[in-house]
């Protein structure tokens, strides 16, 4: 069995408390770095480990840190991306709620590497439970002199502030996140300049995902070699996978990168419930195009998934069984992207409106012949023409569904109904009660 690292503490009692974290070796990596490492040495170590960002884009973390201009006299900032809003993704929440100190240690280490004395954690507003736990953990750190001035008696200072989001998926995109902290509408900014050169308040800034930062203390304590030898050569390390949808054992799993999608959903996930067959699987959150069952032997590897037309993304693995309707699933995802479009550019804002209208029509059985071609035409007008990857991600999801499950769309249009009409439901709808608005009472 794979020995877990990131989730190791999460099963302990009071895993969220500083005392628990420290008694399991927590903050020793930080102490070691502040005493024995220069910032450059820490960056080199992370480069050496080949850690790639876990937020979706898979950019090499050490390389990103090295872009921050050391000689710049401007303040530098670290932002932790805890906006986790990609449908099918819930791994960062586990770290935040169950092992917040692991994240905080990662943030302090990253800040030290880039020379930041102020860090912000951008957390989505719905994670109110997690935000409270995180705030308590930060308070514990300040009381124990693990944050603030002269951390571990060194001359390194750092303040961390939690910034609460307000329900906008686009704020997970790094430049939109910066706009949001600055006090503007959460809309993406033009790159270049990249945030490492000109980010928050036009100062050098690094934005990293929660899971990326949680890896750092372990790379320090166990070494770059240990990390590099786990999983895929080009994108190694322990990785959190989120399993959901119609699968027997949904949940967060820590496994090496490079594991096959089939092993993940059939082995660990236990396949689809009630002995049903798996029809399709999304490998990396809603923006990652789905694969049909026949393609499940693919490795969960950044480059392999990309070459197969999908992506590792957030490792949000969503399973659809033989009773799931691909048209409905596609409509659900595209409705999400349309709702979350920030409105800045017209291909995404206007184009997705029409895509959703057409998908609605097909789903409801009123689709017309030519609708699929119209969808493809719209997709061509949107893809590659958007200001940020949200619009492109939406189209990738649509194209993935059309590529492998075109017949389902055709069936809906030709026959005028959904063959999966009776949706799987654990619900009993027999209840006859009604709420009486004026009486505060049930009938």
């Amino acid at each position, binding site marked *: 069995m794979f020995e877990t690292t990131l989730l190791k503490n999460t099963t302990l009692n009071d895993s969220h408390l500083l005392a628990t974290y420290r008694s399991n070796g927590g903050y020793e990596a930080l102490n070691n770095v502040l005493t024995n490492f220069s910032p450059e040495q820490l960056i080199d170590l992370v480069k050496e480990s080949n850690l790639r960002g876990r937020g979706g884009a898979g950019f090499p973390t050490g390389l990103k840190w090295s872009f921050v201009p050391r000689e710049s006299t401007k*303040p530098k900032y670290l932002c932790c991306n805890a906006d986790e*809003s*990609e*449908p*099918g*993704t*819930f791994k*960062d*929440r586990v770290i935040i709620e169950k092992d917040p100190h692991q994240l905080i240690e990662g943030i302090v280490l990253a800040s030290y590497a880039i020379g930041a004395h*102020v860090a912000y954690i951008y957390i*989505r*507003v*719905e994670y*109110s439970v997690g935000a409270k736990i995180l705030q308590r953990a930060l308070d514990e750190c300040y009381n124990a002199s693990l944050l603030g001035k002269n951390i571990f008696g060194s001359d390194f200072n750092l303040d961390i502030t939690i*910034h609460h*989001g*307000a*329900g*906008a*998926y686009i704020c997970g995109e790094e430049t939109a996140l910066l706009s949001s*902290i*600055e*006090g*503007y*509408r*959460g809309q993406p900014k033009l790159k270049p300049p990249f945030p490492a050169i000109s980010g928050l*308040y036009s100062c050098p800034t690094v934005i990293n995902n929660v899971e990326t930062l949680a890896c750092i203390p372990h790379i320090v304590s166990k070494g770059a070699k240990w990390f590099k030898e786990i999983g895929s050569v080009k994108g190694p390390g322990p990785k959190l996978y*989120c*399993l*959901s*949808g119609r699968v027997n054992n*949904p*949940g*967060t799993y820590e496994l090496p990168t490079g594991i096959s999608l089939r092993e993940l959903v059939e082995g660990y996930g236990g396949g689809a419930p009630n002995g049903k067959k798996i029809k399709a699987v*999304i490998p990396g959150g*809603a923006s990652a195009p789905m694969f049909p069952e026949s393609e499940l032997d693919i490795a969960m590897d950044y480059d392999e998934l990309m070459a197969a037309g999908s992506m590792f993304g957030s490792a*949000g693995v*969503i399973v*659809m069984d033989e009773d*799931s309707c691909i048209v409905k*699933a596609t409509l*659900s*995802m595209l409705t*999400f992207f349309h709702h979350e479009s920030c409105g800045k550019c017209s291909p995404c804002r206007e184009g997705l409106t029409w895509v959703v209208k057409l998908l609605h029509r097909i789903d409801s059985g009123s689709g017309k012949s030519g609708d699929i071609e119209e969808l493809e035409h719209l997709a061509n007008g949107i893809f590659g023409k958007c200001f940020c990857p949200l619009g492109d991600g939406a189209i990738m999801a649509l194209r993935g569904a059309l590529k492998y499950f075109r017949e389902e769309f055709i069936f809906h249009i030709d026959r005028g109904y959904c063959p999966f009409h009776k*949706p799987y*439901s*654990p*619900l*009993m*709808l*027999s*209840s006859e*009660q*009604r*709420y009486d*608005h004026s*009486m*505060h*009472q*049930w009938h």
Partner: protein
Amino acid sequence: MSSLLIASSSQTPDEYFHPDLRDQINEIALRYPERRSAVMPALHIYQERFGYISQQSMEEIADILDMAPVQVYEVTSFYHHFRTEPVGKYHLKICNNISCMLMGADCLIGHIQQILQLKCDETTRDGMFTLSTAECLGSCDTAPVMQINNDAYCEHLDAEKLNKILRSLENKIE
């Protein structure tokens, strides 16, 4: 609404300020190099206190943070979480994204609409319940999921669980 905001209010700030909120926001603003960054925290504080963001609240926040009221409105209107109208005492937000949809969120929404006699984005006449759909709440492994107000999630929902939850809220009302 924005045109109203640009028109200056007849009240002077001193008349309508909530000094405790102002102090709280001023303190938060110290954590950012630019005061404007405290606009979202300020909106959260006002929404927590008053249940929604009124025009007066936006004007107060603008005054505290040296912004134009319309700039505060611009931010307020961008984020789904901030609302400019009151909602029910219990705001039920049911996720209907893909994983919850696959696990029967549609039926759940139908069920709750039926028992509350309510469509999405409506409030019961007694002001107790507002029903909305939510985007993925980041709890897809416990689908279907609902969040009430800003509290811990209600997970693995089915009709029976939902009935129990609604009844316990009703008991809280009395």
